[in-house]
């Protein structure tokens, strides 16, 4: 089937992109001034100690050798050893990634579920009060940084009202034993959702605003299309025109924005995790940079790169699925 082959083809194309990402991160990370060993051992350490550590982490070898070793490692699923945590990088990532994914995916679902109806209503009632309200809200949404929204939410809903907890984000599938005050799995899920609410809104608002705006303009354009006129002239009801004829065409640019938003959201997650003290990828990458933990910097950046590439591929495949004009690789 065309779509499957197209998907595989796009996946294959991702490999050189990922190699590019690794190369750039490797050499950039090595350009950061300072020395991880120094940070690790404190000021004026003994010379033998320094050399021992350098040898242990392979830092005494020239950069190109280390690069090739690293590349070979990545190919076999070994992202190296974190100097700071003294654990394999992959282990650290797998420990932190679920929280970040949980946060980002929730934020996205929140954004899409609210933005699409808002955008459609806005387009349908173009230049009427409902449209103005939604446009102002989304304008504020795109121009407000997520960390600021996060801080405001904490001040109002955690500090003054005390409705939601301000710190941490337990996973819904965590064991009840690890969560304070929870005995059953259901309670864990509830606690988790309580913790999720504010960071989800903080992170999702920007996406919501962006998607609303693009959905609106795309629907406005689509509703003026000749095919909409044709459907009207053949007696199709207005609600069906909005739901079917105009809607499906209008989703093409929306998909692009959602796909690109995925990487913006991951970037936003770094800030949101800091504000809400969530132990996710964002905190991990900051720790890595602060401690010049080369392998960890490269590993986390690589993971972000992978997430970005996956986002793009999902976008392309969804696009090809909705728009028959996108030529699949085998038809061009």
């Amino acid at each position: 089937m065309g779509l499957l082959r197209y998907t595989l083809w796009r996946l294959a194309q991702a490999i050189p992109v990922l190699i590019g990402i690794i190369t750039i991160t490797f050499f950039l990370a090595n350009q950061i001034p300072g020395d991880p060993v120094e940070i690790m051992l404190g000021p004026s350490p003994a010379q033998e100690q320094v050399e021992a550590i350098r040898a242990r982490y392979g830092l005494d070898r020239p950069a190109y050798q280390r690069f090739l070793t690293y590349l070979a490692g990545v190919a076999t699923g070994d992202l190296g050893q974190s100097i700071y945590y003294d654990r394999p990088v992959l282990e650290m990532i797998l420990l932190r990634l679920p929280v970040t994914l949980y946060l980002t995916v929730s934020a996205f679902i929140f954004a899409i579920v609210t933005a699409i109806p808002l955008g459609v209503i806005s387009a349908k009632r173009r230049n009427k009060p409902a449209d103005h309200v939604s446009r102002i809200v989304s304008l504020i949404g795109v121009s407000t940084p997520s960390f600021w929204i996060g801080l405001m939410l904490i001040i109002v809903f955690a500090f003054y009202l005390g409705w939601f907890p301000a710190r941490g984000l337990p996973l819904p599938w965590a064991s009840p034993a690890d969560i304070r005050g929870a005995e059953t799995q259901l309670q864990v899920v509830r606690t988790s959702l309580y913790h999720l609410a504010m960071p989800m809104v903080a992170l999702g608002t920007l996406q919501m605003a962006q998607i609303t705006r693009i959905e609106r303009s795309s629907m406005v354009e689509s509703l003026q299309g000749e095919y909409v006129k044709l459907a009207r002239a053949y007696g199709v009801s207005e609600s069906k025109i909005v739901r079917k004829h105009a809607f499906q065409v209008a989703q093409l640019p929306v998909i692009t924005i959602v796909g690109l938003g995925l990487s913006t959201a991951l970037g936003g997650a770094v800030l949101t995790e800091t504000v809400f003290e969530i132990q996710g990828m964002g905190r991990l990458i900051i720790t890595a940079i602060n401690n010049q933990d080369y392998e960890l910097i490269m590993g986390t950046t690589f993971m972000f790169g992978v997430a970005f590439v996956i986002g793009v591929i999902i976008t392309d495949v969804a696009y090809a699925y909705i728009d028959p004009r996108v030529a699949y690789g085998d038809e061009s």
Partner: protein
Amino acid sequence: MTEPLLSVRDLKTQFFTEDGTVRAVDGISFDVYEGEIVGLVGESGAGKSVATSSILRLVDSPGEIVGGEIEFKGETIFGLEEGDAGELRPRDEMLTETQMRKRIRGREIAIIFQDPMESLNPVFTVGGQLREFIEINRDLDPAEAKEEAIDMLREVGIPAPESRYDEYPHQFSGGMRQRVLIAMALACQPDLIIADEPTTALDVTVEGEILEMVTALQEKYDTSFIWVTHDMSVVAEICDRVNVMYLGEIIEQAEVDDLFYDTKHPYTSALLDSMPRPDKTVDELRPIEGVMPEAINPPSGCRFHSRCPEAREVCREVHPDLRDLSDEGEATHTGACVKHDAFDVGYGDSPAIETETGSGFSAGLTETGGEAE
């Protein structure tokens, strides 16, 4: 003659813009009888498309039908009456928006749009779109509608309709898409089809094929057509009767032969002169001079006077209405030009006026019959 299928009386459609009111259709009247192809001719901007969307009551905002009457098979598509306080309000028998949608659009009056590239929805299959409209307008279930759709595609000359049914619009050429749109209109079995410049976007060969096909199918199904075009050669090929529009008004109405061989209005003559004909050389082709003025502020008197080679002073003052100019015993032929005797306003004694386009070059062009080029 019998009752007309469609009767339009003094239709006025206006657009309320920031710059003022655009009188896109300014009091036109015409009839369409069963089984005939009626032409609606004029340059772009004459108000032809607004007139046809008015018939379906699908004028885009900020446009609005402000006056006149549209009757179709005894039903009132549009009609106003004076209320108690002297205000105008829709008559009781005027169809509601829902009735228009369910009973008229597609089912009784179908439309073929100008641009076959844009009219089909790019994300649905051609067959799916056809089937949907057939289902709605003929109360068929999906399987029957699909069968009907495939039959119709075959009828309009699309090869291998069973397999093309599942293809998307971008896999069809422009001519093929126009055939699909024609199939769509015919498949709903309406009594009237409005064809809004359906061949303008196509090349001449394809246009010829499509006109031929439409003529054949029109005879077979006995559907009436309103054929909107700016091209007199298309009119000659398929129309029975013709309405010529200029700036929101109909300025000449006649059977097609009378219009061509006994032209009454200078604008119609100009249109005819600008059209390639086998009995004329290219040198004799004369484009119409000047551009049509804006409908927002139409010229006084005869609206064509700024471009009319026969304009006289009186044309600036008198606004000619459409009058019967036919000789006794002939089919009705009406025109709106004061040079005819039916208008006793002193055209003969009135001095000629310099037309707007009479800036040496084009005035010379008019007199000498097209030296330039």
